[in-house]
């Protein structure tokens, strides 16, 4: 069970940041109307608003590099909590920004997962 949770967590993280970095306009497919995002303390709800926010961020290209992934079952009908830390390199910037992010994934009927909760914070200093 632990191994499966970890596998799902890793697979999701790969997919999420790959989509973010290469096809950000499709990131909305990972969220649903009930999804919540807190992005640097700004609160948004629903895949449309979340996608709009992420696609309006003030940088064109970016690349996420992931340092740590921790996953645990959330005890919500197959839900998984994934805690990520890493860095994001913006085009033209000298140094990457460090960040931490937390996802709460809920299974879909198709056998995949969507993001029910998403919290993102830059790690300064």
């Amino acid at each position, binding site marked *: 069970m*632990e191994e499966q949770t970890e596998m799902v967590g890793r697979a999701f993280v790969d997919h999420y940041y790959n989509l973010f970095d290469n096809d950000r306009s499709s990131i909305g497919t990972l969220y649903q109307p009930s999804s*919540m995002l*807190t992005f640097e*303390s700004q609160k948004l709800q629903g895949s449309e608003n979340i996608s709009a926010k992420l696609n309006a961020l003030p940088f064109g290209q970016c690349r996420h590099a992931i340092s*740590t992934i*921790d996953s*645990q*079952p*959330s*005890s*919500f009908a197959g*839900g998984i*909590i994934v*805690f990520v*830390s890493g860095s994001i390199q913006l085009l033209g910037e000298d140094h990457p920004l*460090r960040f*931490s992010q*937390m996802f*709460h994934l*809920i299974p879909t009927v198709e056998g995949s997962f969507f993001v*029910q*909760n998403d*919290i993102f*914070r830059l*790690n300064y*200093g």
Partner: protein
Amino acid sequence: MDPDTVAKAFVDHYYSTFDTNRAGLANLYQEASMLSFEGVQIQGAQSIVGKLTSLPFQQCKHDINTVDCQPSGPAGGMLVFVSGNLQLPGEQHALKFSQMFHLMPTPQGSFYVLNDIFRLNYA
């Protein structure tokens, strides 16, 4: 009480207990609780408190910079995402950390920690 107030109250209580009476953290976990501490996975209140009380420092002080929270689903759970500093005695610089709690309501009207993930933020 609104979720942000509950989250802030929990965070205050958790870290002040950690800093002044670490063994008292046992009240905040149950048998089903899970902790990932710098990649080490531990389950159950006893084992979790065993781990936290055996960390290689006696005293410490947490200073919290950010607290974000969201409801986790229909069971009344709450996700709390914290970042801050951890100062150890004798160390010149504080360690930066991020931590995530998934709180579940108890019948008594309080909360316990079902999921707990702790990571230091290295430079």
